[in-house]
Every structure is written in C-alpha cells, then in structure tokens.
C-alpha cells in the first residue's frame, strides 16, 4: 500500500503548466513548480535508487539539498550531469533523468547481491584490506569494487557548456531567504544599502514555502515585492553560497534554470548575514532507509508545497515538538496519522490539537523496525508500545541541526547547545551576523525578529542609516520548542541495519566497530568508516554520528568535537570552478615579437612554460626528429638564426649597479669592462643555484642582464626584494625589458660574415668585437645590441633590440645574409646544440643542485662575498656522492635514449630511484650518436665507466658511457675564431 498521491488542489505547483520529462526513458508528467523529486513522487516513483555499498533500495529522505539518496544523472552525451540532487533539481520541460548505481533498474538490481556480501564492506574494509601487508588483495577485489562502487559517471565527451564567472560587490550579503533572510533583506534594502540576497531554492521563502498559512504567504510575497522595488537590492534564487572566505569574500554558484549550467559569482561584501537555516536530522533505527521513510519536515514540504500526500496512512516518529506540525498538516489533508513519541509526553497544547485531529500518540516509543520491500508497508514500534502500524510513509524527526558550515569556513568551531540538542555557530567574525534558526531560534516570528535585528546591526556596523522596522505577519505566537536527544534506537529494536550515513551506507554497527578498534576521534571515525565523506558531506549524518560516538566513549556530545567543514557547501560541477580558464585560456599565452614571422615561415610551435616557441621549421623537415638535425647541421656548417626573445632581460642602472651585480653573482662583475659581457651564475641564500645568464656592461652605470626564460620573473622579483628590503643603501634601479626588447641568435661559422653584410658600416671584426664583446649599433633609428655570445659553441652573436623593431631587424639580417644560405632554426636545435656544448639549462637547474654539482664551482670568486656563499659549503653540499653533471654517450647504436631515464651502475639491480637521471638528450650531428646530459651520483669521478639507463615506462634499457659534458670543441677554438 506504499505510495503518495497528488492532491487535486493547493500547493505551489502550477497545474496550468504541465511539464513532460523522462525518468529512465519513461515519459512522465509534472508541473511547473515541481522539483524532480516531487514530480517522481507524484508519479508513484518511491524507490529511486540503490545505495552505494549494499545496493539497498532507497527513496528520498528529504526535500532539500541535504538529500543523501536522491541523486540522478541528467541529460545525455556531452551534456551529461551526474549526481544531480533530485530534491533541488527544478523540473523543466524535456528534462531527462536517470537513476544511478542501479543496474538494470532501481526496482531490480543485480548488484543487490552486495547485501549478502556485506561483510566485505564494513568499517575499515579498505584500510585493513589494502593498507596492510596483503596489498595483492587489491588486485583481487578491484574489479568487483569498481563495478559496485561509484555514484554517477561523468561524461568523457567534451561538452559545450559555458561556465562563466564574475565579480560582484555589495554592502550586505544575506544568505538565505527564509523568514529571517527576507526580513533582513527588506530592512537592509529599504535602508538603501547595496544588498544581495542569495537563495539556493528556485523560489524565495525558505521554510515559509513548506507551511500552509495564508498570512505568511502574504507576508512572504510582500517582502519579495518590496525587495524587487529597490534597485539597490538583488534577490537571487537558485544561488548557493558555497563558501565564505577571509577578507569578506563569498563564492556563490547560480544555476541557469533553462540549461542547468552553473555560473560562479565572487562576492566582496562589507557585511554578511547568515540566515541559512537548519537541517532536520533523522533518527537511527533498523531499516530506517526503506523507501517511504522520510524526514517529517520533508513530508510536510511535499504536502504543502508540492501537494503530495501519503496515500492513506502515515506514522511520525519524533523526539521533539516540530514534527507535530507535520502530523497536523497531514491529518488536515485526510491522512491517518500516528505519532511515536520518544519522550514521555509533550506540551498540553500539542496533545490537545492532536486529539482534536484524531491523531494517536504512543509516548515513550520509537521505531523498532520498518517492514516492507522494497518500500515501507508498516512500522513496528519498540519501547513502551510494541505495536505494528501499517502505513504509506514514516516521517522521522530527530531534531534540527543549524547550518554551521559557512561560519565554520572561517575557522570558527561550532558549539553544542543542549537546548536544541545540536550545534550552533561558535561565533561570528567581524562584520558577520546571524539570524534565525541557524542560531537555534526556531519560531517563525522569532526568526523574523532576528532578521530585522541582524540587518540593523549590519547597517550600524557599516555606518549606514538605521533600518526601519517592518510589518510582522499576523500569525499566532510561536510555540516553545522542546526536544530530548535520542541518538540510538529504542529498546526492543531489531538487529537490522540502522543507517547513520545513508549516502555512504555507514551503519550504527560500523560506528560501534570504529569505537572498538580505537578510531573514536571524530576525524578518525570519518576516515575509518567514510561517514560524511559522500557528496552530501554528512549533512544528515554527522551530528548523529558524533553523538553516538560520544555516547560510546562516555563523554558529552559537547566534547566530541565536529569534523572540519570546507567549501563547497553543496556539490557543484567542477566546470564552474574552472570557469573559462580551460584549454588555451588556462593561462595566458606569451608570444615573441617574431611569432607572426615564425608562423608565416613554416614554424611548428611548442609550449615552453607560458611561451609559444618556434620548435622547428618546415624547410628542415616535417617532423621534429628529422628537422632539428638538419637545423643543427646548418649552424655547425654555415649560419642560422633563431628567436631568443623569450630570455629574461633586465636593465640594471645606477652608480652602484656594478657593486649590486657583484653581490648577486658568484663571479666577479665589479671590474667587467664597458663593452664586455660575462656569463654569471646566481645562488639563493641557501647556496643552491637559482639561475644563470649573461650580463653586459653598457656603461659605467648601466648593465644589461639576461636570465633563463623560465626564471625571468623569479629573478626580477629577487633583485627587487634585495634592493627594496635589504640593500636600500645601494643606488640601483632594475627594470624588466623582457617584453620591451626581443632578440635573435645568429650562429655558425659564417655568422660574422652575416652581420657584416647586415651592418656594413659597423666594425664586427674579431679585433673590435672579440668573444664576449658587446657593441651597440644603429639600425633604422633604433639601438641594436650586438653581443658575441654563444649558446651552441659555434662562433655566434646575439642581436637584441626594442621589440617593435625585432621583426624588421630579423628580416633585414635574413635578406642581407641570404647569399650565405642563412635559415631559421628552432628551439629543438637550439637545445640540442647546447647539449653538445655541455651548457646547462633549465632541465639541469632543478633547484636542488649546487655550483659544484653542475661543474661550475671554479667560477665562484674566492675572496669577494656573494649571495649563498656561506651556505654553499655546508657539509651535505660537499658530500662526494652528490648527483652531479655528467655527459653520456649511448653505446648501443640500434637503441634510442630518452630524457628522464633512470641511471644505474652496471652492477646495480634495476630497481628504485637509481643513482641519477638523464636531464637532456639529443642526437649529436658531430658525433653521429645519441648523447645526453644527466645528473649522476658522484658525477665525473666515474668518467669512462659504463652504466645503464632504464626507462621503465617503455621497459627499455640501454648501456651508456660517462664522458665529459663538453662533447664538441672542448678548447673553445670555434668560440674565439
């Protein structure tokens, strides 16, 4: 006889607007104003899913976002939305909903066999089975668990949903639009404050929507109208405040009713009023999860808001006064109601009204068992009255838990309040106020008074005009609220599963077991049993669980503590958090001033950090593997040109510029002559290598520093830190030129000829522009800086100039040097040439190595102080077996070397982290074999030894020889040519 019926009239649904939707492919109808849950109940769908572990049939427990059971998958294909909460999903035309975690259907579920295998899933199952010595058991259980577990499945298709984000600002943010929130909103709005009132439901009103009182509906509508009239106020429905953050910031998610898409708003407020209300909590008794068992307040909501009543009979079980109102409303809708009352009595007024409505009350009684399969057919009471009562529905009320989540986000722990047998916010941060049932005030008039008061306090706090009083609804005075905590089943209860956490299938027995095994702290309880770890985050289970645990430990609930509340308050799609920061908008793309030229001239690009860099050019080949080799040959035999604009470039100026650089670099810069460049390395304070680069002296007081591409920002900040925070006596300014200037490398035997052709009036001879020489020349009205630097080991120059001129300068050199066969080369060849030369770069500088590790120890000045000097000589940094730079040659020509390979000594077992790894690898055109740079334990002390490179991902191994990292031109004859 289980079932619900739609009442012919009443409720807030619009019977003139029918909506067609599908559920598991079946065509059903509901009305505008329905939630998916109410529409399913009206269509007789009581069992709407199977539970997570045991695959027990489940129905809706609640009518709000605390719902643990009623999760659905909406839509299909790329537009699939898993784990939508049915109780807060607004019904819309053509909505397609599917049940989850049930195959083939909620009514007949093959996996219900899990119920028989349930010993597998008791508390601690995962810990004991998979954390212990028998890790192999994972292999055995995995397929079984993977099939059984899991809620909805996310689609793997790329959707075209658009998730927008925006920033908003207000004076007062009111969270919740129940009686307290509406009152606060009206007062604040009419006082002229900029107000946002956020309501997670699709209608404003909160608890008022589930009552059936004319005067309250009039008051509600009047408040909404008053707020709508104020242009300074905005009442947003379908808007959940997901988190409160430090610095008066909130994040709110808003659902678009037409599409289900979610938009995020980051709200900066000056004051906030928490009027977030309270959730009813269930009682724990055997088989309390049978479909048809609901929170008493939910029964009342389905009745008054959605015009859905149990077919004939309902039982209410309670330990507090609030559930009587549900009983009264049901009785007035011609449902036969019986109340099982945990307490010995309740107030005379309630008893009188119950008697008047023909409601039987069994005091000192609770539920011993729930009968029926899959859904409820009867309730057997325990305690004083062991009677069995047939029914269509059982309404449960264990009391009300104020929503302490948002105040807790700021680190304020909730306090236990015995008067309501639950937790209230432990306080409010500055500018934060509370109103209504979140404070444990449960009467409608009391909450309205709270709302007015909170708004006035907030206005005073903001020095805005005092809010005026508002009219109160003409309703009878609030009843007193009485409750007597009831955490465990009554005497005489059956031994069946009594659920504490419905979504994660955690039972009373699991909590007891956790206690027995010593996991009695609430945080341990949570992790050991998974209680509260579902998508509902334990909104209906946490307080019961910690109170049960307190009972087992023999301590006060107040001393049991709560687990930590974290945003988001309610589940939301990850797409909303990512917003538009996806794909190429994930981070900004940086392009060099030569990007357009590169693109038009056959470059294939590669991402290097945020930069898009020319990887290789079409003239050299169609794949990087072949193209870079041709490009390397071009540089080694003729002349090539490469874009190096991404290098960090810093202008260092001031009378103390030389002294400044002399402190920052390990090697000397004080005596660097004007017109000369010097390679320099800088350390962090701890003696670890920070960056390297070349710095040129332009004048007595001006230097031009370059840094690696990757560390440009870091080095700039570091120099500013030193100058602004510590060395304020130095008269130096630094300015980043990374975007303002660009540059190119002109490299190869014929590079001097190329420059001579490009700048026929300049003297670029070896005598005037020797190795590491620097010279500014004029080109088209701007300064062009010629620096004889080489990253490749060949005769080479870097040519830098202001970014706007870079492309015309590049084209000019290309044209002038055309007779020499100049062609562009890309990043792959650039990097490979430097590997052959043994220059370290970003891949070697892993922020763990010292100068000595990189073979650069000799560079450091002996006498002068420099940053990092004191700590670089620490004992551990002097250890003989540190991972240090080596060159590597492949000994097996038929094989290939891979970057990231793990290095082992020839006699080692190939296992674990090895003795080092390959940082950079390339085909050497000079040596006609694969070569690499790497870090190896003990470094070049092992020169000449044969070792092994393992690449476990591809199950490859190759024999290598340790050699000097300088593979070509060790004497530097080419550099100085």
């Amino acid at each position, binding site marked *: 006889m289980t079932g619900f019926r739609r009442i012919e009239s009443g409720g807030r649904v619009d019977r003139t607007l029918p909506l067609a939707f599908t559920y598991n492919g079946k065509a059903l109808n509901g009305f505008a104003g329905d939630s998916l849950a109410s529409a399913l109940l009206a269509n007789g769908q009581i069992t709407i899913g199977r539970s997570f572990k045991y695959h027990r049939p489940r129905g809706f427990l609640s009518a709000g976002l605390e719902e643990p059971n009623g999760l659905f998958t909406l839509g299909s294909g790329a537009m699939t939305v898993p784990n939508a909460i049915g109780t807060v999903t607004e019904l819309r035309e053509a909505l397609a909903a599917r049940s989850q975690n049930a195959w083939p259907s909620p009514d007949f579920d093959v996996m219900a066999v899990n119920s028989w295998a349930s010993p597998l899933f008791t508390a601690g199952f995962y810990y004991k089975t998979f954390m212990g010595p028998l890790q192999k058991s994972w292999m055995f259980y995995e397929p079984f668990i993977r099939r059984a577990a899991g809620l909805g499945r996310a689609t793997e298709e790329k959707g075209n949903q658009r998730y927008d984000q925006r920033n908003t600002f207000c004076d007062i943010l009111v969270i919740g639009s129940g009686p307290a929130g509406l009152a606060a909103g009206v007062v604040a709005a009419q006082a002229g404050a900029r107000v946002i009132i956020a309501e997670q439901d699709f209608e404003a009103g909160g608890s008022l929507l589930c009552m059936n009182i004319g005067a309250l509906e009039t008051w509600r509508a009047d408040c909404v109208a008053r707020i709508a009239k104020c242009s300074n106020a905005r009442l947003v429905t379908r808007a959940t405040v997901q988190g409160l953050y430090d610095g008066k910031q909130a994040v709110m998610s808003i659902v678009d009713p037409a599409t289900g898409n979610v938009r995020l708003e980051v709200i*900066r407020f000056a004051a906030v009023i928490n009027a977030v209300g309270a959730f009813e909590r269930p009682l724990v008794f055997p088989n309390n999860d049978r479909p048809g068992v609901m929170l008493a307040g939910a029964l009342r909501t389905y009745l008054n808001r959605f015009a859905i009543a149990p077919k004939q009979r309902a039982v209410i079980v309670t330990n507090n006064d609030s559930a009587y109102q549900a009983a009264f409303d049901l009785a007035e809708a011609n449902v036969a109601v019986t109340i099982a009352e945990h307490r010995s009595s309740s107030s005379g007024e309630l008893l009188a009204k119950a008697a008047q409505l023909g409601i039987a009350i069994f005091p000192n009684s609770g539920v011993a068992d729930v009968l029926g399969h899959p859904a409820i057919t009867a309730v057997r009471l325990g305690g004083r009255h062991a009677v069995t009562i047939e029914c269509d529905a059982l309404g449960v009320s264990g009391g009300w838990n104020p929503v302490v989540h948002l105040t807790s986000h700021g680190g304020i722990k909730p306090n236990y309040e015995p008067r309501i047998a639950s937790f209230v916010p432990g306080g409010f941060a500055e500018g934060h106020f509370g109103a209504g049932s979140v404070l444990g005030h449960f009467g409608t008039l009391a909450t309205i008074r709270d709302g007015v008061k909170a708004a006035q306090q907030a206005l005073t706090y903001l020095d805005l005009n005092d809010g005026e009083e508002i009219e109160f609804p003409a309703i009878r005075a609030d009843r007193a609220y009485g409750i007597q905590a009831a955490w465990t089943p009554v005497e005489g209860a059956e031994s069946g599963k009594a659920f504490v956490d419905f979504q994660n299938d955690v039972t009373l027995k699991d909590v007891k077991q956790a206690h027995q095994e010593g996991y009695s702290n609430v945080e341990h309880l949570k992790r050991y049993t998974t209680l509260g770890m579902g998508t509902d985050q334990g909104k209906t289970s946490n307080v019961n669980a910690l109170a049960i645990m307190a009972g087992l430990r023999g301590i006060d609930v107040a001393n049991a503590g709560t687990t930590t509340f974290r945003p988001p308050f309610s589940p939301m799609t990850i797409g909303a958090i990512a917003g538009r920061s996806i794909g190429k908008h994930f981070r900004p793309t940086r392009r060099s001033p030569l990007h357009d030229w590169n693109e038009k001239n056959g470059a294939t690009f590669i991402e290097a950090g945020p930069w898009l860099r020319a990887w290789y050019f079409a003239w050299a080949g169609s794949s990087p593997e072949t193209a870079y080799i041709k490009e390397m040959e071009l540089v080694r035999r003729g002349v090539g040109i490469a874009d190096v604009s991404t290098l960090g470039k810093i202008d260092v100026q001031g009378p103390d510029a030389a002294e400044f650089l002399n402190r920052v670099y390990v090697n000397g810069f004080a005596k660097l002559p004007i017109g000369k460049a010097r390679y320099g390395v800088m350390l962090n304070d701890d003696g670890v290598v920070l960056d390297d680069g070349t710095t040129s002296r332009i004048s007595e007081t001006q230097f031009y520093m370059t840094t690696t591409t990757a560390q440009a920002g870091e080095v700039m900040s570091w120099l500013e830190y030193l100058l602004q925070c510590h060395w304020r006596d130095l008269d130096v300014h630094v300015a980043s030129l990374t975007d303002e200037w660009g540059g190119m490398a002109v490299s190869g035997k014929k590079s001097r000829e190329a420059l001579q052709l490009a700048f026929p009036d300049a003297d670029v001879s070896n005598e005037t522009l020797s190795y590491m020489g620097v010279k500014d020349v004029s080109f088209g009205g701007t300064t062009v800086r010629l620096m004889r630097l080489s990253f490749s080991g060949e005769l080479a120059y870097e040519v830098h100039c202001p970014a706007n001129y870079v492309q015309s300068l590049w084209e000019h050199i290309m044209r002038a040097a055309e007779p020499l066969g100049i062609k562009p080369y890309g990043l792959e060849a650039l990097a490979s040439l430097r590997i052959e030369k043994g220059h370290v770069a970003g891949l070697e500088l892993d922020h763990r190595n010292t100068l000595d590790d990189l073979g650069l120890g000799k560079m450091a000045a002996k006498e002068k102080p420099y940053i990092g000097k*004191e700590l670089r000589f620490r004992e551990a940094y002097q250890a003989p077996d540190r991972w240090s730079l080596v060159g590597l040659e492949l000994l097996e020509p038929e094989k290939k070397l891979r970057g990231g390979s793990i290095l082992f000594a020839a006699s080692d077992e190939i296992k674990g982290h090895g003795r080092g790894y390959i940082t950079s690898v390339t085909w050497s055109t000079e040596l006609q074999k694969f070569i690499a740079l790497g870090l190896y334990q003990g470094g070049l002390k092992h020169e000449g030894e044969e070792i092994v490179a393992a690449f476990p991902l591809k199950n490859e191994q190759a024999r290598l020889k340790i050699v000097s990292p300088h593979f070509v031109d060790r004497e530097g004859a080419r550099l100085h040519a």
Partner: protein
Amino acid sequence: MKITCPHCGDRDWSEFRYGGDASKARPRHGTGDAKAWHDYYFLFDNPKGMHTEYWQHVLGCRQWFVVKRNTATNEMIGGGE
C-alpha cells in the same frame, strides 16, 4: 581577500606574492658565518596569530612591503614599506 599596497591601496590578493618572514634580521652582506645564515634562512617561528611578513605587489607596482598578518584569520595590519 584584499591586501593594502602602500603605493596602490587596496587590491585583490591575487595581484600579490608572499615573500616570507620579515621578523628576522638578514645578516649584513658578506658578514655572518654559516650558522648565522642557517638560522636566518631555515629557522622560523610558525605562530598562530600575528606574523610579520613580506609581500610584493608583483602584478601591480612591484613594491615590496612589510605587513602584520594574523595567520588564523588573515587579517592584515600595516602596509608600511
């Protein structure tokens, strides 16, 4: 959350970078032994409450400055240089 830059005023936290403990005196350049630098570089208090620290308005005017921040609430005082 907003941070007060002494040059630009209140700006969103995302424009700033954290720069570490500012309560300790850095040994003067070229002075101090390994122990002094070790203590300066590696040893920190981790207070719950007010903490003096460096921040840089890195996506703004690039000013470095010192503030006192309550590590429990992120309340900030100062914004002096």
